[in-house]
C-alpha cells in the first residue's frame, strides 16, 4: 500500500529549523472574490443501500473565515441505471430512475441533514431501495437553480477478500494494547485495478456515511507496481484489542481512484511549503467539483486479538 511507504514530512522538519531564524506574523492576504462552486459527494455501492446518497454543498469563499459547509437544498437529484452495449454505448433504463429527496433517515440527525439526498424508499419500502449492481452503470443527474450537472459511475465486480489478519501489535502511549489489520487478496491480472478501504468498529458503530468509516485520509491502493500479485496491505490505523472490525474493500474505477488520490493530496496541502492541489473531479458541468464514486464492495470481519 503506497501510503505505508510515505517518507516523513520533510517540509515540517525544515519549518522547525527555520524557527531558529524565521519569524511569523498574521496578515491579510487580500485574495480576490470568486464564485462558490457546487460540491458533489455521491456514492453508489453494492453492499449498503442506505449508503447510496448524494451530498450537495457550496464551497466557502476564501474571505469567509468560517470553514463550515453551506448545504444546497431543493435540488433535483436523480440516479438511473444502465447497461453497456457491445458498441460501447450505455443504454439508460428510465424505469430504473430514482429521485433522491432530502433525507429524513433517523441515522442522519435533523439540523445537520441539509443537503443530503437519499432514496425515500429506504424508509417506506426498503426492499425496493436503490441498490447498486456489479456490472451496471449509474447516471447521476443534478439540477440546481436551472443548471444541470451529470456524472457516470460503473460498478465493477467486487474483488474477494481472501482473509483478514491482525499484525503489528503495540502498546499505545496510554497503555492500550492495539494492533493493525492486514487485508489479503489476489489482484486481478487486468491492469488498472484500484481499491478504497473503509472499516466499521466500536468507535464509529453509531455513525452514518462513508466519511465516518475510517480516518479522514482515504486509504487507497492501485496495482501499478504489482499487477496480478497476491496483495497483503496493512492499514496503519491501530485497533484496540478485542475490537470487532468490519473491513470493506471497494473496487473502483481509475477516475474514482484519481479523485480520492487528489483528495488525499489536497487535504495535506494546507501548510507551508506545500504544493497546491485541485480535486480531480468526475462531475460534468460549470463551476462544480466532486466525485460520483461507484463502490463494488467486498467485506470481512475480524476481532483484534
Amino acid at each position: 500500500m503506497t501510503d505505508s511507504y510515505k517518507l516523513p514530512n520533510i517540509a515540517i522538519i525544515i519549518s522547525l529549523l527555520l524557527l531558529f531564524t524565521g519569524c511569523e506574523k498574521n496578515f491579510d492576504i487580500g485574495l480576490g472574490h470568486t464564485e462558490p462552486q457546487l460540491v458533489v459527494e455521491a456514492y453508489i455501492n453494492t453492499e449498503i443501500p442506505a449508503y447510496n446518497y448524494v451530498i450537495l454543498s457550496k464551497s466557502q469563499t476564501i474571505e469567509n473565515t468560517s470553514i463550515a459547509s453551506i448545504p444546497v437544498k431543493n435540488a433535483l437529484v436523480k440516479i438511473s441505471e444502465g447497461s453497456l452495449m457491445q458498441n460501447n454505448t450505455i443504454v439508460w433504463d428510465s424505469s430504473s430512475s430514482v429521485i433522491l429527496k432530502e433525507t429524513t433517515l433517523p441515522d442522519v440527525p435533523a439540523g445537520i441533514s441539509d443537503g443530503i439526498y437519499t432514496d425515500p424508499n429506504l424508509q417506506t419500502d426498503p426492499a425496493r431501495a436503490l441498490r447498486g449492481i456489479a456490472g451496471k452503470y449509474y447516471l447521476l443527474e443534478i439540477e440546481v437553480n436551472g443548471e444541470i450537472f451529470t456524472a457516470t459511475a460503473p460498478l465493477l465486480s467486487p474483488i474477494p477478500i481472501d482473509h483478514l489478519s491482525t499484525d503489528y501489535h503495540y502498546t499505545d502511549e496510554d497503555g492500550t494494547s492495539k494492533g493493525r489489520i492486514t487485508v489479503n487478496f489476489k489482484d486481478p491480472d487486468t491492469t488498472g485495478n484500484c481499491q478504497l478501504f473503509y472499516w466499521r468498529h466500536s468507535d464509529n458503530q453509531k455513525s452514518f456515511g462513508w466519511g465516518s468509516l475510517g480516518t479522514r485520509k482515504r486509504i487507497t491502493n492501485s496495482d501499478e507496481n504489482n499487477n496480478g500479485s497476491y496483495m497483503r496491505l496493512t492499514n496503519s490505523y491501530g485497533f484496540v484489542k478485542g475490537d470487532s472490525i468490519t473491513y470493506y474493500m471497494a473496487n473502483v474505477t481509475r477516475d474514482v481512484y484519481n479523485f480520492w488520490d487528489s483528495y488525499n493530496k489536497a487535504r495535506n496541502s494546507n501548510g507551508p511549503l506545500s504544493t497546491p492541489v485541485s480535486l480531480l473531479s468526475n462531475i460534468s458541468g460549470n463551476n462544480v467539483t466532486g466525485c460520483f464514486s461507484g463502490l463494488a464492495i467486498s467485506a470481512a470481519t475480524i476481532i483484534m486479538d
Partner: protein
Amino acid sequence: MSVRTILNMTTGMRNLRTIYCFVKALLLLCCLQCMHTANAQTVTVSIHVLNSIHMPVSNATVDIDGNRMLADSSGKLLQAFTKGNHLIEASAVGYYSRLLHITLLSDTTINLMLIQKENELSNIVITAGKNNNKNEMSFYSLDIDRLKKIPVILGETDPLKTITLLPGIKNGGEAGSGIYVRGGGPDQNLILLDDIPVYNPNHLLGFFSVFNGEAIKSVSVKKGDMDAAYGGRLSSIISIDTREGDKDSLKLSGGIGLISSKLSIEGPLVKNKASFIISGRRTYIDQVAKVFAKKRIGNNGYYFYDINGKADYEINDNNKLLFTFYNGKDKFSYTNDKNNLFNANWGNTIAGLTWKQQMPSGKLKQSVSMIYNAFDLDSYYGYDLSDYIFTSAVTDYQVKNDWSYTPSGKFNLNWGLQYIWHQFKPGAGDITQGILEFKTEINNQYAREAAIYLSSGFRISRRLRATTGLRYSYFNQVGPTERVIYNEDGNPTGETELYKKGESIAHYQYPEPRLNLDYTLSSVSSIKLSYNKTIQYLHLATTSGATFPSDIWIPAGQIVQPGIAQQVSIGYFRNTHSNIYHFSAEAYYKDLDNQVEFKQGAQLLLNQNIEGEMMFGKGKAYGIELFAEKKKGKLTGWVGYTLSRTQRTYAEMNDGKPFPYRYDRTHDMSVVANYTLSRQWNFSTVFVFGTGNALTMPTGRVNYNVGFNVSQRTASYTSMNQYNEINNYRLPAYHRADICATYTPISKKKKRFSSSWNFNIYNVYNRRNPYFIYMDINQTEKSLQGKMVYLFPITPAIGWNFKF
C-alpha cells in the same frame, strides 16, 4: 518501416544537410581569412599579463598604439602587429600600469609584469562587464576581491548571491536557492567550478552557495550568446574559477565570520613552476544555536563544510597540468521530544585533471580534461519501531578536448568534442517496521551525452565582426534498467520492460547553432545581435515549495523529452568619459519547449513511475535589461533594471491557458555603490527591489468526506483549499538595503601579515520580506488566517580576514 522511423530519418537527413552547408560555408570563410592573414606583413605577438608572483592577471586591459583590448581570464592576449615600433600599455584594477616600447620583427611572446598597489581598495566593482571591442554580449565578470566588498547576509561572500544583483539574473526570493536567468528555471544554468559542472550548488537549502570565497578567483555569467563549446543547459553559463597557489612562497589566509570560518594554505610545489592551494570552510551554526537557542533547538544541529584543492604544474612554456578538487557536505540532524530521529547528509564531490598545451607559435592551443562529478544524498528517519532510509545520487564521468586557433587578431577558430557518461540513482529506500523490512529501489538510469562543436570569429568589415558556431549534441539513455510501460492515458499498466546493459532506450540529437554580430558605431559605442539554440537533456525534479536536496535529476527518455530553447538578443553598448561610465540596453526574447512540470501533489521520492508524474509544456520569456555603471574614481558602482515577463503553458494546467511562471518578476532593480574613503576605509551599499513571486493561492474552501456521528449528532468532514488559476497571486514586493564597511589597518612598516575587518548590516531598514505564506486552518475553531514567514530582519555581522 513505420511512419515515425521515416520521419526521424527525414529529420535526420535535413539536420545533416544543414550541418553540411554550415560547415562548408565556415571552412570557406576560414580559408579566405587564412589567405588574407598570410599575405599581410604582420607578426603575431602573444602578450601575457602577470603579477609579481607570476600569476596571471585576469581581464587586464592592454592598450596597443591607442587601441584598447582585453586580455582573457588567464591574462593572455594574442594580437597581430605590423612589423616595426609599437607602444604597449597594460593595466588592471589594483595594479600600477606598465608601459612598453617595443620593435617587432617576428612572432614573439611578451610577459608584462604588473606591480600590485598595496591596500588599493575597490574603485571598480565590475572589472570587465562589457567591452565594446569584444564580442561578448550578455556577459558579466566579477573579480573576487571586489565581491568581498559587497555587503551580504551574515558577511558570507557568495558569488551566486552577488550575481543576482546583475540585470536579467534573479534569485528565488529571500534566501531562496536557484538562479533564474531570463525566464529559465534553476536547473537550466550550467554552473561550473573550474569548468566542472556542479549539480547542487547550495548549502542550507539555498541560504549559501558551496563556493568558498577564500578559494575563488572570479565568477562570470553568460546569459545569452552562448559559446558553442558549452551546452547541456538552456539559460546560462555561470563559471566560477578558483585561484592557483602562490608559486613563490608559502602563504596562509583566512577569515572568521559570524557563522563560519575559512582557511587557505598555498605555496609552491616547485618554485616558480608548480603550486598548490587547499581551502576549507566550516560553519558553526550548530554550536551557535546550542548556546543561544538551546531550548528551541535542543541537540538538533546543522553544519556544512567545503574543501577546495588545486594544483598546477607548468611543465614548460607551452604545457601545463592542472588538478582541481572539491568536496562539500551538509549534515542535518533533528530529534523531537518523542526521540524520533531525522538525519540527512548531502553534498558534491568533483575532481578534474586538465592538460593545456600551446604550440610554440602561440596560435594553436588545446586542452584535454578528464572530469568526475557527483552529488549524493543520504537520509535516515526513525519513528517508533520504524526506520526509513533514503538515498539518491547522480554521477558523471567526462572527457573533453578543446582546440583554439588564432592566426591573427581578426580571425579565430575553435573546435572540440565532449563525452559524458551519466549514472542516475533516483532513489533507494529501506523501511523497517518492527521485525519486518521492506526494500524499495528505483531502477538506476544510465545515459551517454556527447557533443562536437566548431566556431569561428572573424571581421566582415571594418565595423562589423561576427562569431558563428555550431554545436551538435547527442544523448542516449541506455540500460541496464527496468522501465514501467504506460498506456495511452499516461497511466502505468503494471507491466515493465527490461533493457540489457548498453541497450538503447531512447536517443536524441540536435544541431545547436550560435550567431553573434557586433557592429561598431564608433570607438565608444556598438550594437550587438545574437541568436542561439540550446538543448538540455537532464531535468530537475523538484517540489514546488522548497528546493530540498531530495531534488532528482531525470534524463531524457522515451517519455521525457529534452528541453529546447531559442533566444534572440539585441543590445546597445556605450562607454563615456574615457571608459569611466558604461551604459547598455539589451532586449531579449526566449522561446522554451518541452518544459517539465510535475502533476499536482506528485510523489517524487521512491516513485518507480516518476515519468508518469510529469507534464510537458512550453514557455516564453522576454524583457529589457538596462545597465549603467561607473567604473573608476572614489565612487563606483552600478544600477541595473530589468522589465520582463515569463510564462508557461501546459495542456493539463490552468485549462491549457498560459500562466505566469513562479519567478516571473515584472520589475527587478539593483543599485550597488562602493566608496573608497581612504586606504583604511571602504564603504559599500546595495539596494534591491523586485516584484513579488507568483503563487497559487486558494480561492475557496471545500468540505468533503462527510460522516455523521449519530449519538453526538455532529458531522465530521475534511476541509480543503480550492484552487482556480495557477499563480494567481503575487507576494508583496521584495526590497531591502544593505551596507558594508571594510577597515584595513595600515602599518608604517611593511609586514608579511595583513588583516581587515568587515562590518555588514543586512536589511538596514528591517523590511519584512516574506519567505513564504500559507493559510492556517483551525478545524476546531473553524477559522482560517493568512500567515507570513519572514527570515532576516535587520542583521548585523562582523568578520575578520587575514593574510600571512
